[in-house]
């Protein structure tokens, strides 16, 4: 039986996932910025559900109040940019495959064995879970460094042109 707090988590978590998908569905910069702000805001609500009010406040101040506003003003005010190279269907297919590959080792055993979902906390090993967050952070950091590299290459090439 799902409790009230779990129902709230499912509600806001589902809304967050839908907002993440809507980023690739929208065609202009302003709506993408608003969807990104919505994700940050819903993430703060989930922090509140997890009884971490300090993290929720920091998330609201830093991400929603600062970064999203900066993004919307800095990017969207320069003119509406249309995205022409996005297809949502491959993104959804990719996401399902990657989610299955990542979630099966931790969550799949519990679901397939018919046990309650709460038992995952008993069988999980903390070192493995820390390794999981390490992977997530590493991938994001690599993508971030790739973006910086593309900026530097672009500047170098355009200066030499």
């Amino acid at each position, binding site marked *: 039986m799902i409790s009230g*707090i*779990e129902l709230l*988590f499912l509600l806001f978590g589902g809304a967050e*996932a839908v907002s*993440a*998908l809507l*980023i*690739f569905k929208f065609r202009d*910069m302003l709506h*993408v910025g608003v969807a*990104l702000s919505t*994700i940050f805001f819903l*993430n703060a609500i*989930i922090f509140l559900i*997890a*009884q*971490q009010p300090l*993290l929720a406040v*920091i*998330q609201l101040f830093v*991400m929603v109040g*600062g*970064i999203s506003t*900066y993004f919307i003003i800095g990017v969207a005010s320069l003119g509406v*940019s249309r*995205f*022409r*190279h*996005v*297809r949502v269907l*491959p*993104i*959804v297919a*990719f*996401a399902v495959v*990657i*989610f299955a590959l*990542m*979630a099966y080792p*931790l*969550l799949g055993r*519990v679901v397939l064995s018919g046990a309650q*979902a709460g038992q*995952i*906390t008993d069988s999980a090993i*903390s070192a493995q*879970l820390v390794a999981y*967050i390490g992977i*997530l952070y590493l991938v*994001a950091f690599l*993508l*971030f460094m790739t*973006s910086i590299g*593309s*900026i530097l*290459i*672009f500047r170098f*090439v*355009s200066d030499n*042109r």
Partner: protein
Amino acid sequence: MILSYFLALGFGLFAIGIAGALASRHIILIIISTEIILIAATLVGVGIFDFYGGAIIPILFAIWSVAAAGVMLLVLFYRYMTRYEADLDVTKLSKLRE
């Protein structure tokens, strides 16, 4: 709160971010996908440390700083490329040499 909910939502957001970065060629969407991955990392981190205990604040500040720097660079990059009327399609960056 059940840990598996946090893990499922974090993995789902991570998968969406990775898929978005792989499937889209627009530089802004790639960096926003990075932001989604970082959000997934914060979710998984909060879920883990909420269950196991420990200091989550330093890790979250590291993630938030990368996210903030990413958006700052995104805005600078976007202004730079729009000033020089460059295409934001990353697959066309190699054609700048022509």
